[in-house]
């Protein structure tokens, strides 16, 4: 008798743990032949709120880590992803990709992580300024992470869109809650396992699966979320997100063309999107300056 395969339960990822959705609801995911692949969690508002609590809790630690250390951790994610390449390729094929497209997507995803890993300790230098004020002050402006970012990843692809959306946000020291592609959620959950074994502190990235239509309003109106990033082109969703964001003057970033899979999509200005600029002033004592030989 053939061996009975052990099937994987696809769960969500909150605070470094893998709970099932509190809602107890799921949606069946089929392959192209109509065979059931998995029952996927239909995350609820409560799951989202729990994820925000985790993300907020992780923000202080993640944002105050040395940039160099964040860089190493992002590189570590890339290493872990590379080492599980075969599994991701297989999942992408299960969800309808050709083998070639699947391999390209996974390669691109690993490279995208390496790209942003490199930026972790460099974008500050590119986007900072020492400002030559006219008074006797030392004045400088530096980017700082916004805080908790809610992300709705692009629907068309299962892995690169998620990684592209998350990498630039966490490279900048933010924490996030991301909603995976509804039709291609498998890699998102498997990617959570990669994160979980890559020294990424729990809560820095929280991954939910489910329906955009059920969750996007919560992503936009939560009072403890600082910014919302939406990858998609639904005008009604965009308008509603922008309206709800006003409750706490959330920053909103819309990417309505491209899903992040092109190489052009990688750019340090995406890190800058979810950064605030902080300017610090301090007086300069002026003793001995005029005519002084120093």
């Amino acid at each position: 008798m053939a061996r009975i395969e052990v099937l994987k339960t696809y769960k969500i990822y909150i605070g470094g743990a893998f709970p099932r959705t509190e809602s107890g609801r799921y949606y069946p995911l089929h392959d192209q032949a109509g065979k059931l692949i998995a029952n996927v969690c239909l995350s609820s508002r409560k799951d989202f709120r729990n994820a925000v609590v985790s993300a907020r809790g992780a923000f202080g630690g993640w944002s105050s880590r040395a940039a160099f250390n964040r860089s190493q951790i992002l590189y570590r994610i890339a290493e872990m992803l590379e080492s599980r390449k075969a599994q991701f390729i297989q999942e992408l094929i299960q969800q309808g990709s050709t083998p070639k497209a699947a391999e390209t997507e996974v390669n691109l995803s690993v490279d995208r992580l390496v790209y942003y890993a490199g930026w972790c300790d460099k974008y500050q230098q590119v986007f900072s300024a020492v400002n030559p004020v006219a008074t006797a002050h030392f004045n400088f402006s530096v980017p700082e992470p916004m805080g908790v970012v809610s992300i709705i990843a692009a629907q068309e692809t299962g892995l690169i869109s998620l990684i592209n959306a998350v990498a630039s946000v966490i490279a900048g020291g933010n924490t996030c809650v991301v909603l995976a592609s509804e039709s291609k959620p498998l890699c998102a959950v498997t990617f959570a396992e990669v994160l979980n074994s890559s020294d990424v502190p729990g809560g820095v990235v929280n991954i939910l699966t489910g329906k955009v239509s059920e969750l996007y309003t919560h992503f936009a109106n939560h009072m403890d979320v600082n910014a919302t990033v939406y990858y998609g082109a639904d005008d009604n969703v965009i308008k509603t997100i922008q309206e709800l964001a006003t409750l706490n003057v959330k920053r909103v970033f819309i990417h309505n063309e491209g899903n992040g899979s092109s190489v052009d999509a990688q750019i340090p200005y995406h890190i800058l999107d979810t950064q605030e600029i902080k300017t610090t002033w301090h007086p300069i004592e002026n003793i001995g300056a005029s005519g002084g030989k120093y």
Partner: protein
Amino acid sequence: MAKKTTPQLDFNSSWNYAPAPEDTKHINLKKQYELFIDGKFVKPAKGKYFETINPANEEVLAKVAEADETDVNKAVKAARNAYNNVWSKMPAAERGKYIYRIARLMQERAREFAVIETLDGGKPIRESRDIDVPLAANHFFYYAGWADKLAYAFPNRKPQALGVAGQIIPWNFPLLMAAWKIAPALACGNTVVLKPAETTPLTALKLAEIIQESGLPNGVVNIVTGAGKTGAAIVNHPDIDKIAFTGSTDVGKIIQKSIAGTNKKLTLELGGKAAHIIFEDAPIDQAVEGIVNGIFFNQGHVCCAGSRLFVQEGVADMVIRKLKDRLETLIVGDPLDKNTDIGAINSKGQLETIHKYLKIGKEEGADMYQSNCSIPKKGYFCRPTLFLNTSQSHRIVQEEIFGPVLTIQTFRTVEEVIEKANNIPYGLSAGVWTDKGSKIFNLTTKLRAGVVWANTYNKFDPTSPFGGYKESGFGREGGMHGLSAYLKF
């Protein structure tokens, strides 16, 4: 220990200064002001006018046109036309030269601007003369130079103008805010429709005269006066590419909501409730000066005012005693007098708001302390006010008052004060006083605010980006970072 042997300071008796009023004869003020559209001063479509008064004596200064939708539409058309046919085609270096001209003309007429700013808004002449007007001119000067150098600010990108910018500014720094808005917009190649606040339209209209004088092509800058409705007409106009707003968080949220679903770009510079933190190891006398400057500068009508004071317990009594003494020396009165420290509250409405909060503070159980100074019988004035024994949950601690009112809390540890300072929806600015460098950097990195002053307060410069975190808005004004608000890539 001897108790209360020090006599109370009394600056009202033997310390009277002779009046030193600034001359107003040299200024040129018309009885009636029209809208500035397409390079000309034109009457409003409906022929409606409103009065702008001097808040220090309640006398009418001039009648000012009220723009409605038709007028705003006309202004936007002029701006679009100027953008398409002139401004976007002009070499960037030439664009810059026009902005330099505006800066120079403003410097030449600086004193006139200062006097009118003080007459219309109530701020002390010393501030309008030494801060508002020079900073406004310098802002034009700074951004003029950026016009042909934009590519250097954005590595690997191609910056392009947005088109027509709609800009709405508040009454606390009328000319300076106009400069903050217009200068970067023009330098980045945009054309502008600007609406000054209804209580302080005059210096913006004087700026329109300078713009006319500078030969700036018609329609590049249009200035439409009016109140909220005029502002709404700008925000909702379909042919505007960018809205820049400075004002209250409430109105900012309405604007953010009204442009949802459009392609308009937005920057918001909204309210604040800054924590001003004094540590035991601070230079106390300097810190007291900093506290005074932080909250009483411009009558406290400052979005980044240091309105929440946190004093470490060990020095709290001393700081509060010195602060009370210093309060007694502050001169409240005629804004045109060069000795005046605190001028007139900008409007009757704002004075009522402040009084409402004074009442709320007392009802919440905080102890109110006001200086004993005399205030003029006519006009809108408010004594500098401290609230002691306040707590984090008090409305006077959580809400922006926008007046000369300081709430005082004490703290013991660094962790405690960071937590309290950040526990508020606002995040515009903060202040820290300590002589210990490592403590400064600990605080300045952990305070969630866009501008942090360490051992100083309320300093501004054209090269220095300004803007908030959280509900204090988004986007930056000033400096290299202020450019991206007016560009696309």
